[in-house]
């Protein structure tokens, strides 16, 4: 009970005083003299001062008093040792700031729940089989879940794709979501303006859409008038679409970005805008999210969804293989944190970075421990005096802890400030690529708790040794000065051990950083099957309603190519449905004579529709036959080109040229074979690809990417290309423009983040260790000043003295390396899956790290060694 006392200690003391007088009065009345009476009264009372003190301490928030005292004291001593305090706080700010920054990024990417009602009761419903887990079963199956699964209070569907819309007559491309009518009800969201979509909006009568908060701000400046505005969007399927006018009826709440973290939804329209897909009984194309009813376990719900799924699969049979591999049963996946793509991509790199910053903090802590030990040695007399005049050792220890904790919390606060700026930078880095990853970072209690806990833990880690030393202070010996040599010898040994520990950790970090950097370099130097330099990519869309017929559509693409080819600086210009590493894909069945597929999978290839000159534009070598020409058009028999993998798969050693294959049951003659291109991931081989000419299309290609090889900087040509595309026709839309090199960069975003940050932290670790070593060696020289002075006076060579100091460094570094290199192998083995083209136990890397560290260590101890060599014997003898 911390009730505040109403009575002051002064009042209590005056009562005690009154008692003594009254007692003396009584005693005098009993016959004692004045003096006798006074002293007897005092004697009977016992220790009056102690009573007053006990009164003071009783019921008071004594520890708070002491804490305030300790705090005042530590601030005072921080001010006195300003140099020490600044060094310590800076070191800690770097260490703590790195931890806070990486943790807050990790929190945002990996840990945060969606800002929806009761996230833990949300689950994704997915089909699964021997080949893993998929997405939602086809839409009609979803509809049976929605209608019949009583375990859920609601089931909603959502599928994502970019949408082309016209607002105020201007065409633009937005990040879109097609959602079932009860999507927002299932998520439990409320609009910030207007209303959200409801099941009746699925009728598209009238058509309605909802916009995201970020898009509202970006596109409409947050103007309330946005609600009620209309936009035109094509509704329909592959065969036939019609333009419909939609009304924006509302805006989703500010914190809600959609269910795919990192990709905010701009525009949400009903799933029924794709009528064919909604009817399609065989194609999965969206995700289902369901909310469990209270009291229903995920297992019960899964069983129920599975029963519905199984009966659906009986009605819509597929091949036994497909049934086993893919559509085997239903699974429930927790949806509290949304879709996992971003998490999967960044989980391992972020965890590795967390470990890295943890080690950086340990190195920083070791520096602080050394500083504190040196300071404790200097303050030995002060502690001794305080113990001698009766300070409790517990109190002394607590005060030292408060001092250390003050340092650490100040460091953490400054670090949090650094982290704030650092995370802005990190978020900008993630949002700055071609496919911006837009994250909303909230600094909430979790970040605060993390930072506080880490700084307290660090306080204990680095404060323990100095505090233990301080409370072991023997007042007698310390006052004598006799024990100082031994105590500081002990401290010096501990300091050297700590520096060796720092060096071991630095080895691990440097080895890790250089492994990651080499991984990145290896990834960039992989031969991807194309030349990424000097290629500009401009994605272009023909507005569907203006080009419904194939002939004018191809004519439009042709005109576009002709104008771009005329631009100065353009070497080759071509069009392609997919470009390397752009994340898109299209699968078709391909069968070849005398090829027997062993599984369903065997008959599938990726399809890319390209114009002539595509391979020349990308720099992909043609291995056999010929490339496409303008003559491969509608009037002549269809042709196709295979990549190496497809040629090998279907033809083994035989020559594919001239053979007629069936691509989704259309006959095409193989006219060429090209080199494999790393299409989806620079780490992986391409897989099988068939190319068909744009002038003999299979799809209705409204979207194509212009791939332009330039003689000049491709970035400088993008503007001119865009202008000529726009001038060519009012019904074209430019999606995004960038270079192929940027596209490669984007695909390696996580790797770049990891290796750059690891390198930065490696350098930080190196600097901190160098500072630590410098401190310890300087202290050691200072401690031995008189000894060195005597040696020099007796005729020792200054160079020898300096060498002995350097020898000490070498032995410390040796111990550090001996521990660090095996540790680095263990650590690198744990992150092996993040490496590419380099093993965890790479000798060159280890040797490089060791040499770098040794060089820096020797440089750091050069100054102390020189100081030792220059000690003036006379001054040294007078020392102390």
């Amino acid at each position: 009970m911390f009730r505040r006392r109403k009575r002051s200690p002064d009042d209590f003391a005056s009562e005690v005083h009154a008692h003594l007088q009254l007692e003396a009065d009584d005693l005098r009345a009993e016959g004692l003299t004045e003096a006798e009476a006074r002293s007897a009264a005092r004697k009977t009372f016992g220790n009056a001062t102690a009573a007053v003190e006990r009164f003071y301490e009783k019921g008071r928030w004594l520890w708070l008093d002491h804490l305030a005292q300790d705090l005042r004291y530590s601030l005072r001593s921080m001010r006195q040792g300003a140099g020490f305090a600044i060094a310590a706080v800076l070191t800690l700010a770097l260490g703590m700031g790195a931890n806070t920054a990486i943790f807050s990024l990790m929190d945002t990417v990996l840990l945060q729940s969606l800002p929806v009602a009761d996230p833990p009761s949300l689950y994704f419903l997915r089909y699964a089989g021997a080949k893993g887990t998929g997405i939602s079963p086809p839409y009609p199956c979803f509809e049976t879940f929605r209608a019949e699964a009583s375990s859920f209070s609601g089931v909603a569907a959502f599928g994502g794709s970019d949408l082309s819309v016209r607002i105020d007559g201007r065409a633009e491309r937005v990040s879109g979501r097609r959602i079932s009518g009860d999507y927002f009800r299932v998520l439990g969201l409320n609009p910030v303006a207007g209303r959200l979509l409801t099941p009746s909006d699925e009728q598209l009568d009238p058509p309605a859409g909802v916009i995201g908060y970020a898009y509202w701000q970006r596109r409409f400046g947050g103007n309330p008038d946005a609600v009620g505005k209309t936009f035109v969007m094509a509704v329909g399927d592959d065969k036939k679409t019609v333009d419909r006018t939609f009304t924006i009826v509302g805006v989703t709440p500010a914190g809600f970005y959609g269910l795919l973290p990192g990709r905010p939804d701009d525009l949400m329209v009903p799933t029924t805008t794709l009528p064919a897909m909604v009817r399609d009984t065989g194609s999965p194309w969206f995700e289902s999210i369901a909310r469990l009813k209270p009291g229903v376990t995920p297992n019960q719900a899964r069983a129920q969804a599975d029963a519905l799924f199984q009966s659906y699969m009986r009605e819509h049979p597929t091949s036994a293989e497909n049934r086993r591999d893919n559509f085997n049963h239903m699974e429930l996946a927790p949806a509290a944190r949304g879709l996992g793509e971003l998490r999967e991509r960044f989980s391992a790199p972020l965890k590795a970075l967390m470990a890295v910053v943890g080690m950086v903090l340990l190195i920083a802590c070791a520096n602080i421990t050394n500083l504190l030990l040196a300071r404790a040695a200097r303050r030995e007399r002060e502690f001794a005096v305080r113990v001698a005049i009766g300070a409790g050792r517990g109190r002394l220890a607590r005060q030292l802890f408060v001092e250390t904790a003050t340092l650490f919390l100040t460091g953490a606060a400054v670090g949090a400030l650094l982290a704030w700026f650092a995370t802005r930078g990190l978020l900008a880095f993630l949002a700055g690529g071609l496919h911006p990853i837009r994250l909303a970072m909230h600094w909430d209690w979790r970040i605060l708790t993390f930072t506080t806990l880490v700084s307290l833990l660090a306080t204990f880690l680095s404060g323990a040794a100095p505090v233990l030393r301080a409370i072991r202070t023997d007042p007698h010996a310390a006052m004598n000065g006799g024990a100082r040599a031994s105590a500081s010898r002990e401290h010096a040994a501990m300091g050297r051990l700590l520096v060796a520990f720092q060096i071991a950790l630095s080895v691990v970090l440097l080895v890790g950083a250089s492994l990651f950097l080499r991984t990145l370099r290896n990834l960039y130097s992989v031969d991807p099957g194309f030349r990424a330099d000097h290629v500009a990519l401009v994605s272009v869309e023909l507005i569907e309603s203006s080009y419904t017929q194939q002939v004018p559509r191809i004519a439009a693409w042709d005109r576009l190519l002709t104008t771009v080819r005329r631009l100065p600086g353009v070497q080759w210009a071509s069009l392609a449905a997919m470009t390397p590493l752009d994340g898109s894909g299209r699968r078709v069945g391909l069968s070849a004579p005398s090829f027997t597929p062993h599984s369903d999978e065997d008959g599938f290839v990726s399809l890319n529709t390209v114009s002539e000159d595509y391979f020349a534009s990308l720099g992909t070598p043609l291995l056999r036959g010929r490339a496409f020409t303008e003559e491969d058009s509608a009037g002549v028999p269809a042709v196709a080109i295979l990549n190496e993998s497809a040629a090998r798969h279907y033809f083994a050693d035989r020559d594919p040229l001239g053979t007629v294959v069936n691509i989704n049951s259309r006959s095409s003659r193989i006219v060429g074979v090209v080199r494999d291109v790393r299409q989806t991931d620079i780490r992986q081989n391409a897989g099988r690809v068939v190319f068909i000419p744009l002038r003999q299309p299979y799809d209705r290609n409204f979207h194509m990417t212009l791939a332009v090889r330039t003689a000049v900087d491709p970035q400088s040509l993008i503007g001119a290309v865009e202008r000529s595309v726009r001038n060519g026709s009012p019904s074209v839309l430019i999606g995004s423009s960038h270079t192929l090199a940027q596209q490669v960069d984007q695909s390696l975003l996580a790797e770049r983040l990891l290796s750059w940050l690891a390198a930065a932290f490696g350098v930080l670790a190196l600097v901190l260790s160098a500072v630590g070593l410098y401190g310890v060696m300087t202290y050691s020289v200072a401690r031995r000043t008189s000894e060195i002075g005597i040696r020099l006076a007796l005729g020792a060579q200054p160079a020898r003295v300096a060498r002995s100091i350097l020898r000490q460094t070498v032995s410390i570094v040796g111990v550090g390396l001996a521990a660090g290199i095996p540790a680095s192998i263990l650590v690198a083995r744990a992150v092996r899956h993040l490496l590419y083209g380099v093993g965890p136990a790479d000798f060159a890397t280890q040797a490089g790290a060791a040499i770098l560290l040794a060089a820096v260590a020797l440089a750091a101890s050069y100054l102390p060694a020189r100081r030792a060599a220059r000690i003036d014997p006379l001054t040294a003898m007078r020392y102390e």
Partner: protein
Amino acid sequence: MPTQRSDDDRIALLQGTLDLLILRTLVFGSRHGQAIARAIQQNSEEVFLVDHGSLYLALQRLEEKGWVGAKWGISENNRKARFYSLTSKGRAKLTAKTVQWRRLARAMGLILGPEDREA
């Protein structure tokens, strides 16, 4: 004449006993601390050793519990002193604690037997 016996004959107060003794001395009206100390010592035939520091802390405790009230006043020989008096809550506590003590004393007496049988 000193009022003390030699310390050996005295009994240190049992935990919680002091509170009861204080409350009892206040039954006949308000008193200041020194008078309470004297009263306890004299009424117990000088058996109890009352540490005065503890007494004042106990008074403070009782005041905080609301069993006694206190205010500064003037003693019979014109000295400033702090006078304590029983509150109704204190009176109720006194009754309860007295009953408790009597039962304890009786039980102890039964176990230890009549005084004359003691060696």
